[in-house]
């Protein structure tokens, strides 16, 4: 409070000088009135120093919006000029992208989990129909602006399939097939036209619904390895028109092996009998077997063949042409012609195929690998990039299989990306009535690439970033010249002369760099402003003055790693790790920072299969994303725990210890030097393991032979409570003050135990009267329970932040039905036990524990403490709130006394109001934040914050305001002109005084 007051005072003084100065210049009334206004405004503005000014929007912060891995994709095709592509994703997002730029036009984020899961997506003209949440809801969206047309809740039952139903050339209805019933809805308002129960639904597994626009809706079901059931409903009233069953003992799933082509013709493929089967749905007599051999085709061994067909208009019959996939890189285009199957063209090799329709024309697009052009790129860093691979996409006439001229498109695969997975073709008619197209390629690393002929990439979206699991921020390296200077001090002394020479040469290099910089400035000044906009590239990556620009290394669930510039959000490198198990857990560790020139920085990613516990290591350079030449050790045993030791090997890489399920320890890097060091330090290396299924916390000590021994054990009975989280402190945090100065000028020392763990438990009994949240503070070395508290009538999810001498946790109070915060602070008392060093083994006294709780008016998804220690940053559903730690202080008194006022303690208030200026992301909504990462910068006042989830948001926060930076609207001109004016005024008055003296002397 006092600080703000002081600031106001300063500001007024400055403004008064301003005011006087201007008064000299022009003494007009208008100016005067303006100035008074200005003065008042200044005072008013001083109160809101936290907030961002309008012109600062986007200056220090950026946001990137993602949609997730694409599941369904449709091009908005009702107008030729449309620039939209509609996507439904596995992250339960429905969005429209601008096809020219790749930006999100609009986006709807549904609930996470199966409740918001998008089951099906149908597109008709301007309307998009979605089935959501396993057939719970049917929604229709207007695609132009993304507005909701209607929404209906469907009857319960698990969703099977859906299709659009047309009659006489227009689509009016949508059919939804559930396990036991089929319903028909109007497309215009969602109202149910009719609903019918399916016959024999307890024995028949109904899987597909189909309509060819002739007034009938076919429902196809299967009794596995027995027969197909076909039921035809009338579109008008839902009456069953026909019902029959056809023998098909080889069939188990219709969507996997069958498609409908031509006029109600069901075509299936079976790999055991190597045959195609056809069934006319209107006659429903029997399956007609056509052996593949008769077509002179053969399926690759161990490959399950599949079919691809196309229905350009839901009110009309599908094409009679279809693709049959015979192997991983072989497709054939077949045609069904009056009971006969004719082969049109054999595509080998072909990676992906797709149909596309524009107007009346339908084309087939085929992607095939180009003759492998192996180009090996030698990089500066002892590293050979993998060969880039190119593929070509060609269009073929769907009816004849003839290749269309001038339709070749080259798709160059990113060597650091995944293989292409799906083709989405946007076809359009050119002015000369030929077909042109653009293509959106989906690759295995969840990236979308939009390409125009003849291979120009319009945009790329890295949707893997919608699922960031963990991240680190790494300082950028120094520039060559800076490093040169640093290196001068790092090397051994050679003698006087050589030292002098070295110094001179490095000074010369600096001068050279400075001149080059000046020249560049001069050169850039002549260019228009927009072009100068510095584009960050690998070459000019270097640390800025205050270390505000960093490299964000992000690890995503798809196994793709990204290096992102924290200033602009641009992706500087990416690397796709193939063969990542789907349930992998990642742990990213910085082994060597950029501070050890000329050794490159080094990050290690531990990838662990959560089921088997088997792990592997990926070692890379976080600045360039290149794999390190250091070969990581093979890990044959499941890994239980990994920890970074604070000591380094001779190459300044921190040592990583891995503990396997035999409690054996392996080190990485495991050079002789490291092993020797480890042996020396073994008795001082402790670690702990948590087994939450058994409620067991156990401590281990390293032995000199790198085996381990258990030294303590704490067991929480699992029938009462379960361990939900264990939080230690961040190893890189700095504590600025050892204690707090009290009102009477004595010091209350903090209990700063770096080994302290906060263990949070939740009761297994969830009854609202008996449920509780337990919090235990345990020393990780000795296993000593420092404090044990129970929050009664409370429930999770509990979010914990543990830093310095305090633990803050948030829980749900079942009694009062609200979110509450509780803070625990630990103090040693008025005297320090051993002020020189902290050892868990020698700290016999129990610290004083203070605790206070508050009501928080909003729910929280994740919390993190800022690394410049003044504030804790918490988040709620959509926005990020930065909450000063000052408000979470168990020493806040009931009544404000003289002493507590001197300590700057705010009187206790049970409710923590969220002030609007605490929202650090102002009106930039961030969806589904999963984690917040904070990193210190070179400025003490500034902390970098990254929130990641579906979106990524980066900004700077100033927990104690910008006390060490001049504001960016600081008026240099004014200050210098005031100074100059004063200088001249003194000169002139001096001169005048002299003249006056002279005159007086003459008199």
């Amino acid at each position: 409070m006092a600080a703000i007051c002081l600031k106001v005072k300063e500001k007024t003084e400055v403004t008064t000088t301003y005011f006087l100065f201007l008064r000299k210049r022009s003494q007009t009334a208008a100016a005067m009135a303006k100035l008074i206004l200005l003065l008042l405004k200044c005072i008013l503005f001083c109160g809101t120093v936290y907030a961002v000014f309008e012109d600062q929007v986007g200056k220090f912060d950026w946001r990137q919006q993602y949609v997730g891995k694409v599941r369904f994709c449709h091009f908005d095709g009702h107008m030729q000029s449309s620039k939209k592509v509609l996507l439904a994703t596995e992250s339960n997002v429905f969005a429209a992208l601008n096809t020219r730029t790749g930006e999100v036009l609009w986006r709807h984020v549904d609930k996470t989990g199966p409740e918001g899961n998008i089951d099906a997506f149908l597109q008709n003209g301007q309307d998009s129909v979605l089935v959501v949440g396993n057939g719970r809801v049917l929604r229709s969206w207007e695609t132009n602006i993304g507005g909701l047309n209607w929404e209906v809740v469907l009857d319960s039952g698990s969703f099977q399939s859906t299709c659009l139903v047309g009659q006489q050339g227009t689509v009016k209805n949508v059919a939804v097939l559930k396990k036991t019933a089929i319903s028909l809805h109007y497309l215009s308002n969602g109202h149910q036209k009719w609903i019918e129960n399916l016959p024999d639904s307890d024995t028949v597994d109904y899987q597909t619904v189909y309509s060819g626009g002739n007034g009938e809706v076919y429902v196809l079901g299967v009794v596995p390895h027995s027969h197909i059931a076909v039921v035809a409903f009338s579109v008008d009233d839902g009456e069953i028109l026909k019902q029959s069953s056809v023998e098909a003992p080889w069939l188990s799933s219709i969507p996997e092996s069958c498609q409908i082509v031509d006029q109600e013709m069901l075509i299936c493929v079976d790999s055991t009998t190597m045959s195609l089967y056809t069934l006319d749905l209107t006659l429903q007599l029997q399956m007609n077997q056509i052996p593949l051999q008769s077509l002179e085709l053969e399926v690759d061994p161990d490959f399950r063949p599949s079919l691809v067909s196309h229905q350009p208009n839901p009110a009309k019959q599908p094409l009679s042409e279809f693709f049959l996939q015979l192997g991983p890189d072989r497709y054939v285009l077949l045609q069904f012609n009056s009971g006969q199957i004719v082969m049109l063209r054999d595509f080998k090799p072909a990676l992906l195929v797709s149909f596309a329709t524009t107007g009346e024309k339908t084309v087939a697009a085929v992607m095939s690998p180009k003759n492998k052009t192996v180009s090996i790129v030698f990089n500066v860093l002892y590293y050979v990039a993998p060969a880039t691979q190119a593929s070509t996409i060609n269009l073929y006439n769907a009816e004849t299989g003839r290749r269309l001229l001038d339709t070749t498109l080259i798709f160059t695969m990113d060597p650091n990306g995944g293989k292409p997975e799906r083709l989405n073709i946007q076809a359009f008619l050119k002015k000369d009535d030929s077909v042109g197209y653009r293509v959106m390629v989906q690759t295995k690393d969840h990236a979308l690439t939009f390409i125009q002929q003849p291979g120009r990439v319009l945009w790329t979206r890295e949707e893997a970033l919608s699922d960031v699991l963990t991240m680190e921020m790494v300082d950028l390296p120094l520039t060559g010249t800076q490093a040169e200077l640093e290196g001068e001090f790092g090397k051994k002394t050679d003698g006087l002369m050589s030292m002098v020479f070295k110094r001179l040469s490095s000074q010369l290099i600096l001068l050279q760099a400075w001149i080059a910089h000046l020249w560049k400035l001069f050169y850039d000044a002549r260019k228009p402003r927009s072009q100068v906009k510095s584009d960050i590239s690998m070459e000019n990556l270097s640390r800025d003055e205050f270390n505000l620009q960093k490299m964000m290394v992000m690890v995503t669930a798809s196994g793709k790693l990204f290096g992102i510039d924290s200033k602009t959000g641009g992706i500087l490198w990416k690397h796709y790790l193939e063969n990542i198990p789907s349930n992998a857990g990642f742990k990213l560790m910085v082994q060597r920072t950029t501070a050890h020139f000329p050794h490159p920085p080094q990050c290690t990613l531990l990838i662990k299969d959560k089921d088997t516990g088997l792990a592997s290591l990926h070692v890379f350079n976080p600045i360039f994303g290149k794999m390190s030449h250091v070969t990581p050790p093979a890990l044959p045993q499941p890994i239980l725990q990994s920890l970074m030791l604070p000591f380094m090997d001779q190459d300044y890489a921190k040592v990583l210890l891995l503990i396997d399920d035999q409690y054996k320890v392996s080190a990485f890097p495991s050079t002789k030097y490291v092993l020797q060091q480890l042996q020396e330090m073994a008795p001082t290396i402790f670690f702990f393991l948590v087994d939450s299924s058994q409620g067991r916390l156990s401590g281990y000590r390293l032995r000199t032979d790198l085996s381990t021994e258990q030294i303590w054990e704490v067991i929480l009975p699992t029938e009462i409570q379960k361990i939900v989280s264990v939080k230690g402190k961040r190893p890189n945090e700095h504590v600025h003050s050892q204690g707090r100065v009290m009102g009477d000028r004595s010091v209350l020392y903090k209990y700063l135990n770096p080994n302290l763990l906060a263990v949070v438990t939740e009761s297994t009994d969830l009854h609202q009267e008996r449920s509780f949240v337990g919090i235990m503070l345990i020393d990780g070395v000795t296993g000593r329970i420092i404090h044990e508290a129970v929050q009664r009538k409370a429930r999770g999810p509990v979010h914990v932040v543990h830093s310095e001498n305090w633990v803050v946790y948030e829980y749900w109070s079942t009694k009062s039905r609200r979110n509450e915060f509780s803070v625990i602070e630990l103090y040693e008392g008025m005297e320090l036990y051993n002020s020189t060093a902290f050892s868990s083994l020698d700290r016999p006294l129990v610290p004083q524990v203070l605790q206070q709780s508050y009501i928080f008016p909003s729910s929280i998804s994740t919390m993190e403490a800022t690394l410049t220690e003044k504030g804790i940053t918490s988040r709620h559903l959509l926005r990020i709130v930065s909450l000063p730690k000052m408000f979470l202080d168990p020493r806040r008194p009931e009544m404000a006394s003289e002493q507590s006022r001197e300590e700057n303690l705010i009187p206790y208030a049970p409710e923590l109001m969220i002030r609007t200026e605490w929202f650090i992301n102002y009106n930039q909504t961030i969806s589904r934040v999963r984690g917040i990462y904070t990193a210190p910068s070179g400025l003490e006042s500034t902390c970098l914050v990254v929130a990641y989830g579906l979106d990524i948001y980066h900004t700077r926060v100033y927990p104690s305001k910008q006390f060490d930076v001049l504001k960016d609207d600081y008026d240099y001109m004014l200050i210098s002109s005031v100074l100059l004016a004063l200088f001249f005024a003194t000169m002139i008055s001096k001169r005048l005084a002299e003249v006056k003296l002279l005159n007086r002397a003459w008199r």
Partner: protein
Amino acid sequence: MSRHWIGDTLASDGLEAEFNGLSVPLEHSFELDDVAKFQLRGSLMLKTGREPSVSLNQNQLSEEDRTKLKEVAAVDGLYRIRVPRVFLQADKQTEWQTEGHLTAFVRACAMVESHLSDVITLHTDVSGYLIGVSIVTLPGACRGIEVEDEVDLEVFNTTLSIMAPVNAPGPETALFIQRMEQEFEKKGKNPQEQKSFFAKYWMYIVPLVLFLMMSGAQDQSGGGGGGGGNGGGR
């Protein structure tokens, strides 16, 4: 919080016949090769019920053990203790015992240098299960002081306590409302202090503003067109 200090429970009051509760072995281990071999150190008398308490009945260290402890201390070995996991609320003997032990350790040298003065704390959870044990010595440091007198290492000087979790406070709304009411009453009494800044100092502000406006108006009429142009410039 239930914290019962039962200090110095040595053999002096060994009459525990009327003691109503469980007797649990306290075991210790100190070996040169650091492979735990637990031996009986004494027995803990746990009083069950709402407010559990504990007392300790322990043996003296034998001559052999004393020398071994000093040897272990010389190589910086560990002195470990363990207690079985028990449930303090159960009535019957059969119910309280569960599998496994809770272990803790302290450096053997600290044990020697403190002349066997240790502080053992037993921690229970909400329902009375023993979840952890901790041991520290007073003083806790190892300074390498030689303990000459063998007698110092004969008898344990143990401070024993049992601790249940404390109840964490919830938000204190009632007190806050009370305080707010008090303040409200106080304010009601003397409305004099409630005046705003403007209400207090209007007599200074109004003449100042008037003066400025007057001087400005004069200036404008005198300055004419030129003055106006000048004014627009700033």
